[in-house]
């Protein structure tokens, strides 16, 4: 078993020392033997109440992935404006055009005063004359 200090087997010296050591281990005081027995039972009981190894192994990884996802959601900038319509692509500019009361109406010609625009254009062309209202 030991092989000894030569390959042929144990020497007498090895057998003698082993016998002494074995004898000392067998002759341990009762208090020590009792403590060793309690230690063994405590070790086995600790094993019995441990969580399943699968859960123990993957729980930290799951927590890390959840944390990374939460950071991504909070800090990564969005490519679309929050007011942009996801279907038509209409953005904030379109809404401003629709709500601008001074702009030219976009919903037809019936309310446009063409005479006014023609008069304004003629006035602009004859800018050399006296200004209106002067």
């Amino acid at each position, binding site marked *: 078993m030991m092989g000894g*200090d030569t390959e042929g087997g144990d020497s007498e*010296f090895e057998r003698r020392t082993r016998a002494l050591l074995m*004898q*000392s281990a067998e002759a341990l005081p009762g208090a020590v033997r009792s403590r*060793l027995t309690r*230690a*063994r*039972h405590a070790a086995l009981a600790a094993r*019995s109440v441990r969580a399943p*190894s699968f859960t123990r192994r993957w729980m930290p990884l799951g927590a890390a992935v959840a944390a990374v996802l939460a950071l991504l959601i909070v800090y990564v900038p969005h490519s679309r404006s929050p007011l942009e319509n996801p279907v038509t692509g209409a953005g904030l500019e379109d809404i401003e055009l629709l709500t601008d009361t001074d702009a030219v109406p976009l919903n037809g010609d019936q309310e446009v005063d063409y005479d006014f625009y023609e008069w304004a254009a003629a006035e602009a062309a004859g800018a050399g004359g006296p200004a209106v209202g002067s």
Partner: protein
Amino acid sequence: MAAFASLVTQTADLIPSGKAHLRDTTQDATRALEAFLASVERKAFRIAQIALRHEADALDVVQDAMMQLSSRYASRPPQEWKPLFYRILENRVRDVQRRRSVRSRVMSYMPWRGEDEEDAVDPVDLAVDHAPLPPAQLESDEAMAALEQAITELPTRQRQAFLLRNFEGMDVAETAAAMKCSAGSVKTHYFRALQALRSKLGEFRT
């Protein structure tokens, strides 16, 4: 023992009845681990005691090694338990030796410190036992004391190789795994340990 048996039974009862084979496997593994720990605990204690020269510390490191093997490595194949257990044990022994070294260095700067309770000699230990020992027992005790002293004086690696090979009965491969070195190193350490012990304990040579 009865309390432990009931604990094993209760733990096994937590497994659904449809998985009876799993419960049997768990119980078998627990029994195998208990048998292994029972087979090594006394030798492990003596190995730790020889290295640390302190009974309470030796008990603590054996318990730590048992706990760690049971909680971390019990799922390994049983043939790996022994090298793993003794590697853990040796690591714990080294931890205690380091703590002692640091503690003694720190305490050397405190000349005002009183005698530490842990270092105080128990008067019971000093009491003389007047009961006569049988001659054979006396001779054996003296021989063991001389052997233990000689093993303590060995370099650490030689001590490990000698105790694991000669006392625990591990083969070269197991010893190499426990000592985290090559098989050749184990043979060298063991051979040198034998030489050193022979030179100190010549009377053992019969």
